């Protein structure tokens, strides 16, 4: 028997670059695939969501103004940090979802590759979604896609890491900031990913992570007037209707996706049209 006392990790939220406990003081139990107790992550409340939105809103102007090149560098940096902690992610995925080591390793590899892929899109998406439009007059007419602001997201239950990255990365690629609710049953990947973010030069407040129950947080995300769009990929289809209804008040863009593609980035961008006179 070892004489050393176990050092157990406390899983907390990630808001504005810090790791606070939920203001509600609540936690819930997370069990391994075999039913063994693993951790007590925070059960976030609507007030944690409110605080996270304030942080995300404050972070938006800076992140939006950063050059696309700089955003790409930071996304790539996140990929680098994730690669360096590969073993921990593999362990946590195996423990909570019960997949084999081979599958868990593939999920982490795919996650790193996915981040690099989105990093590449930061300075190319404007060419894909924007255009130069022919007009009948002495003007250049451009359509330029821009970020929308604060986007809330609900990550899918599984895959707990890759699904999370597929939700978060496209949102921030274009300059949005995000408040994301992690997988309820397997939140450890997301919370460990927060530690990756904290060491990745990502400005505070660009990604804010909550853990808790979808049915508790999602309606508040939908009704919050300072959230501009919502990714509900992680919600069961039968809950999509009421959430879309609640989100109509401030004309939120509400989308859900099944796979990774550039459309996920474009979905959370707004087109701006600019007229510019042609000089003689």
């Amino acid at each position, binding site marked *: 028997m070892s004489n050393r006392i176990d050092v157990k990790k406390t899983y907390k939220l990630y808001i504005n670059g810090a790791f606070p406990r939920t203001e509600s003081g609540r936690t819930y139990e997370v069990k391994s695939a075999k039913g063994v107790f693993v951790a007590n992550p925070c059960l976030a409340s609507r007030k944690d969501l*409110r605080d996270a*939105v304030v942080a995300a*809103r404050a972070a938006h102007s800076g992140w939006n103004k950063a050059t696309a090149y700089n955003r790409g560098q930071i996304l790539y940096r996140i990929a680098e940090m994730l690669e360096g902690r590969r073993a921990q992610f593999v362990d946590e995925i195996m423990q909570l979802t019960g997949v084999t080591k081979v599958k868990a390793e593939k999920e982490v590899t795919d996650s790193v590759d996915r981040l690099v892929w989105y990093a590449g899109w930061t300075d190319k998406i404007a060419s894909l979604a924007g255009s130069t439009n022919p007009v009948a007059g002495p003007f250049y007419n451009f359509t330029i896609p821009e970020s929308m602001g604060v986007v809330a997201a609900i990550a899918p239950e599984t895959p707990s890491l890759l699904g999370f990255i597929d939700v978060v990365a496209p949102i921030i690629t274009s300059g949005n900031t995000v408040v994301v609710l992690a997988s309820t049953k397997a939140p450890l990947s997301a919370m460990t990913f927060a530690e990756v973010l904290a060491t990745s030069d990502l400005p505070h407040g660009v990604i804010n992570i909550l853990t808790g129950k979808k049915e508790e947080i999602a309606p*508040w995300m939908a*009704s*919050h*007037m*300072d959230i501009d769009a919502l990714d509900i990929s992680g919600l069961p289809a039968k809950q999509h209707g009421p959430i879309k209804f609640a989100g109509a*008040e*401030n004309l939120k863009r509400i989308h859900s996706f099944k796979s990774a593609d550039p459309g996920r980035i474009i979905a959370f961008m707004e087109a701006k049209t600019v007229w510019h006179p042609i000089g003689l």
Partner: protein
Amino acid sequence: MSFYGLVDGSDASLKSYLNNLSGVDQVGAEARAAMLATRSIKTSSKRWAIDTAITMVDLTTLEGADTPGKVKALCTKAVRPDPTDSTVPSVGAVCVYNDMVSVARTHLDLIGGQHVPVAAVSTAFPSGRASMAVKIQDTQDAIDAGAAEIDMVIDRGAFLAGRYIDVFNEIVQIKQVCGDKAHLKVIFETGELVTYDNVRKASFLAMAAGADFIKTSTGKVAPAATAPVVLVMLEAVRDFYEMTSTRIGVKPAGGIRNTKDAIKQLVLVNETVGPDWLNPKLFRIGASALLNDLLMQRMKMDEGYYSSPQYVTMD
């Protein structure tokens, strides 16, 4: 002048009056302010507190870049803070620099805001570094332009050097200029007074000299209206009331940016001087950003969902 019979206007009597004040227990004041900040406010009281706080806001713009347009917009907001909701009360006053007083007064009268007074910052705000003649002229100008409240700064240099009588005489002279035309608020700039003992001293000095209100800060120096400072000033006001049966008002200003901070101030008032002071005649909050947060919290309580800064006016 009688000075409530507390001093006779001589240096010696002022010194003995101030030296007889009890000291402030720093640790105790900070602990009590921190304890009062943890009070939980239930929903129905919160609604009342938000509306009360709105009536207490001195809506302020004190920037070098202020324009008549900005001041007019501020006045419009002061009269009707939420254009979509007529149940929101008007704020306590509009607080501007001297040269903007007539712009503010004229515009307020034009839009039906006769009940909203204009406060002017005066006596070489914010530093207080000018000759007495200039300070008197400054105050007279503001009153002539229609200011009903004068926010004067004290000469902190004189105060910290122990020349209390100079500070006292200054307040007395400005009070004479104000007469019965304008309320006098005396700003201490507590961030520069260093100790709570000094804050207590300055409070008693200003009250004896004829201040109608004592105010924490200019908003140009940090720290401004911290909870312990406001507590010390409220206790001074309470003790002064026991001595003279005169109610002096308190105005924290600077650093109160959200509803939570404002409600904490109301709790301090209620627990220190009592509910008599919970009205805009005796308690004001100097702020600019606060009003929007109060409005957003009010919307949240009415609508049931979180609001956004996009739904309140910017200035």
